């Protein structure tokens, strides 16, 4: 009898232990994309509150009952997204074997989700929960990294989310009482991102591979139809494809590889030289392809390089300015006054490669780039206030 009872107890223990450790019941999942997809489906942007929501997270209006109800209604979605951002792995499940014809996930929904989280973060800041508000910002930086799958479009959506998050973080820092503990935490979080920097490089590497997959007799028709506007160039390219032999494809792949080598090299140059070189490279296949059939397919796949590069450097300038600002805020929190000069080892202005010009103002400080942004012919200034 005793033996039977012992056996039963052991069996129950084993079953209980197995149930507790069973991976099937695990939440959150080990792939952040599962939660993002779910959040994208569940979130219902409310057209009537959209402009109010945007005014709110831009700090232009106060919290009201409508906004509070909207945030309460979507709390589950916010929590789901915040859970997703804590997961390292994010696989959107894209079929890369399709080359440039890969169907992308609904990343545009990520911007709606960002607006929702930004509004919730603003509410946290207004209630005095400054660290929570900044935690939302860090979460959005993580989401932007998750969005940055290999296609260039994914990089661009991630760029938009990161840039908007910078705006949020700048405002929160400007309005919060400076606490050493919170700022040290924020600095550590931002430094952590250096281990997995938000970069264009994976997108460029994938672009090279994807175009090569699409440069095949089976796929090229679709690519031409999708990638080019109707016109003389498209007509000529179609004609060449109709008469193409295997050598045509081999020669075009070689041209494309050389082209991408030059692009990747240009992205590593100092800003002004890179900008000029990418401008030339943007035009080159179009100038050459009429006389040189080897440039034909590169015309279909070449991305708008100079524009993408400008966006990436502008984002880098914002990111670096924010990190430099956090160092200044931290100095202020520790010493009680703004430093005379920028702290050592803070990130630099990517347009000039030199430190930002630091100026103290009546209500805070300003970080100004020393180099000019060439596409807009503008010198960027980042303003930070101190409460």
């Amino acid at each position, binding site marked *: 009898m005793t033996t039977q009872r012992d056996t039963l107890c052991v069996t129950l223990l084993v079953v209980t232990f197995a149930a507790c450790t069973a991976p099937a019941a695990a939440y959150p999942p080990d792939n952040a994309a599962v939660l993002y997809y779910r959040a994208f489906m569940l979130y219902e942007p409310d057209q009537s509150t959209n402009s109010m929501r945007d005014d709110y997270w831009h700090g232009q209006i106060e919290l009201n009952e409508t906004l509070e109800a909207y945030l309460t209604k979507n709390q589950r979605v916010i929590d789901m997204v915040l859970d997703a951002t804590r997961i390292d792995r994010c696989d959107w499940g894209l079929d890369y074997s399709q080359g*440039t*014809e890969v169907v992308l996930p609904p990343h*545009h929904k990520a*911007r709606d989700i960002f607006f929702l989280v930004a509004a919730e973060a603003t509410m946290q800041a207004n209630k005095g929960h400054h660290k929570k508000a900044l935690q939302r910002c860090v979460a959005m930086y993580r989401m932007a990294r998750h969005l940055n799958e290999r296609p260039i*479009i994914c990089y*661009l959506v991630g760029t938009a989310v990161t840039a908007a998050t910078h705006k949020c973080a700048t405002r929160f820092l400007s309005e919060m009482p400076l606490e050493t503990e919170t700022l040290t935490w924020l600095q550590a979080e931002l430094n952590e991102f250096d281990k997995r920097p938000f970069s264009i490089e994976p997108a460029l590497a994938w672009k090279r591979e994807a175009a090569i997959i699409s440069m095949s007799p089976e796929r090229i028709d679709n690519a031409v139809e*999708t*990638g*080019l506007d109707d016109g003389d160039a498209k007509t000529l390219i179609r004609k060449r494809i109709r008469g193409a032999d295997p050598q045509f494809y081999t020669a075009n792949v070689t041209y494309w590889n050389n082209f991408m080598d030059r692009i990747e090299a240009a992205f590593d140059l100092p800003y002004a030289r890179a900008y000029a070189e990418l401008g030339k490279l943007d035009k080159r296949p179009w100038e050459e392809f009429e006389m040189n059939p080897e440039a034909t397919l590169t015309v279909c796949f070449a991305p708008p390089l100079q524009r993408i590069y400008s966006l990436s450097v502008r984002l880098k300038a914002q990111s670096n300015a924010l990190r430099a600002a956090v160092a200044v805020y931290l100095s202020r929190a520790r010493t009680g006054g703004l430093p005379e000069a920028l702290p050592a080892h803070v990130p630099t202005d990517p347009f000039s490669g030199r430190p930002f010009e630091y100026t103290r103002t009546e209500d805070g400080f300003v970080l100004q780039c020393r180099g000019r942004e060439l596409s807009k012919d503008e010198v960027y200034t980042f303003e930070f206030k101190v409460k």
Partner: protein
Amino acid sequence: MKPVDRIEEIIKKKLNARADAALHNRVLERVREAKAQYEETMSPCRRKWITKNPSTRLASAAAIVAIAVLAVAAALLLGGREAPEPGPTKARPPVACALRLATALSLEKAFRSGGMQAMEEQYRRAYGSPRGDTENPSVEELMAELETETRKSGG
């Protein structure tokens, strides 16, 4: 007349399908194919057993009618359905077209021509609104409609 031979009549009389001639013929063709396949795969002795036994005869007739109803429902869902009331119809891109709008190369083209805004607009065209499919009836709604029409005509 056996039930399977009355399918055309059932479609016309019992179901308020309002299908055009092409859709009607397509459905009928599917049912005939199903019938032919059924007869091919059914062994003669088994067929004899079914036709002799009243309960199995009723069950097989019911199964065939169910197949016909499902075929009509599927055809309506996949093949299009007339609007219940006249009015402006929304042009919707076919699925293949929408998928093409969501490819990496296509979205890149949109970005090249109109920047982030054009890219986002194309994304929205490709994926539509979150409740974009509510204009199509669900299978439950469709079946309820069919049942109502069947009751009205005394079926």
